């Protein structure tokens, strides 16, 4: 009963197309769990079934012990959701958006405190379209925390962000995780999966190929006698870029 999420033989089909093909995995409380895979692997569909936004064809998904198919409203109360695009009303400012979402979750919050958590207090009266990419994603994370969820789902949170903004967002995700929130995220970046996630599921064509920690993945591969052909470089171009532009967070 220690799993916060338990997915068993999950299948989702659209006509003849099978988007998710019989996957099973568990997520432990307090984990950062990553679903790694190329575009079209079925990551977002899997996420949206867990988020109650899509119905499943067969199988079972339990969130905090609750069946998403039978009790979607109870699940919605316990989770936070970030979608791929920053899905917010363009004509409402950040404070107003948080206030509206609080009513939709039927909770009472202090919007300004929530903005402070994600370092956006000076953007309180701004509209989402006036924010940079990283700021949008940080605001999006703040909006997932309104109902003090046990689990939050982040769908490709750093796609399209520059390196500084990505590192800043990773720190934000770690901070939220430290406060006791389980995090499930999708990504197609290897470095993000390696640096941020405690455990990973590698997904392709609707199936999970392997589940485990990034370290065991690499260990397993090396134990098979795998050798990388090129010599590992002591530094790469990203290190140069970060060194020149400053690893310190410049992003407003």
């Amino acid at each position: 009963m220690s799993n916060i999420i338990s997915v068993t033989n999950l299948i989702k089909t659209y006509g003849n197309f099978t988007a998710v093909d019989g996957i099973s995995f568990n997520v432990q409380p307090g984990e950062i769990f990553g679903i790694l895979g190329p575009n079209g692997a079925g990551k977002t569909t899997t996420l949206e079934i867990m988020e109650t936004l899509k119905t499943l064809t067969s199988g079972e998904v339990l969130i905090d012990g609750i069946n998403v198919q039978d009790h979607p409203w109870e699940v919605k109360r316990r989770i936070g959701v970030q979608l791929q695009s920053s899905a917010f009303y363009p004509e409402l400012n950040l404070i107003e958006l948080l206030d509206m979402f609080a009513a939709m979750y039927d909770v009472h919050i202090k919007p300004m405190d929530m903005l402070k958590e994600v370092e956006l207090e000076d953007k309180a009266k701004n509209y989402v379209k006036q924010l940079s990419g990283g700021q949008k994603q940080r605001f999006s994370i703040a909006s997932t925390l309104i109902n003090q969820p046990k689990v939050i789902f982040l769908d490709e949170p750093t796609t399209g962000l520059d390196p500084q903004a990505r590192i800043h967002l990773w720190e934000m995700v770690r901070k939220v995780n430290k406060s006791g929130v389980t995090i499930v995220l999708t990504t197609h970046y290897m470095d993000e999966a390696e640096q941020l996630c405690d455990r990973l599921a590698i997904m392709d064509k609707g199936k999970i190929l392997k589940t485990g920690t990034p370290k065991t993945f690499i260990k397993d591969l090396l134990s098979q006698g795998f050798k990388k052909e090129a010599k590992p470089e002591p530094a790469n171009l990203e290190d140069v870029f970060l060194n020149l532009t400053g690893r310190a967070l410049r992003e407003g």
Partner: protein
Amino acid sequence: MKKIYKKPNQIRAFFVMMKYFFLAQTRNPATFAFGFLFPVVFISIFGLIGGSTQTLNIGLPSGSNLNNPIVQTIKKQSYIKTQEAPRTDLEKQVKQGKLSGIIEVQAAKQAQTAYTIKVTTSQANIQEAAGVNSFVRGIADQTNLELAGVTNPPVKVEQTEISGRKLRYIDFALPGQIGFSLLSTALFGTVFGLIYLKKALILKRMFATPTKAMTILLAQGGSRLIVALLQTLLILILGIVLFKFYLPHGWLTFVELLVLSVIGLIAFLGFGYFMAGLANDENSAGPLVNLVSLPQFLLSGTFFSTENLPNWLQPIANNLPLSYFNMAVRKITTEGGDFSQTIPYILGLLAWGALMYFLASRTFRWE
């Protein structure tokens, strides 16, 4: 493991969402332009059109006999404007419809005739031509009687005018403008608004909360209702203050108009939800919305009366939802009727609304 499956509270979510959806609309330049600026411009134009009265423009060829008593009588009429110019110029203007006709009084050609009045009119303006002809005939008849020494003609015409309120164009057009604004808000606002919310994943993000989809749609409709009521208020107040729009029963009529607006908008919103369900994106929504709105703007007696439409078109024109709304509004304004007389039209509106909500429930897709 103990669990309490509590039903999510929708009431607070409904009111807070309605407040913010309304706020978002007030910040949208399109709402402002189409909902508030256009009606103000339209009403101002209608008010100004109503100001002028019908006149006949008559040309008097220069060089003709202008001093005879018949020409003097013509010039004295308040509703006639005369213009003196060479005959060829005047004829050109008659052909173009700028002049109602030309009147030239010629000296007698025969022994028993005093004058010959030569009237020139054109097909360019049939109504004014008829007006000029009957006016000249009247003058000729009277002059003939006087010349013949008849002081007591056997047939007398007795004219009585019933005192009544002079109806101006604004009295006709203002109710139409209210209907036009309501239908525009309900259709364009709802269809393009919902398509945007779907495409930008805003609706999806909201569905991830414990607030039900129906609550979100109702809050959307509620916020449009507030906007529509403000539009009606603005149009009415402008009409009353600037152009003395006539409310037969004062405040009662005013309140009745607001009630009708609410009913009208609820019915029109049904069309909006139905169209939003049919259209996948903005490109397919444009033609669909125009297909519904344009015929109604033209055929529902919005800006001009439907009485002159061909007979076969009348049954269609008189049963469109906007026609019902316009007829109900005119019943209590221009016709000075009682609110109970609008009930058939309200039932018609509600029937249209019910049909549309039914179709919308079949076509609407959340994604």
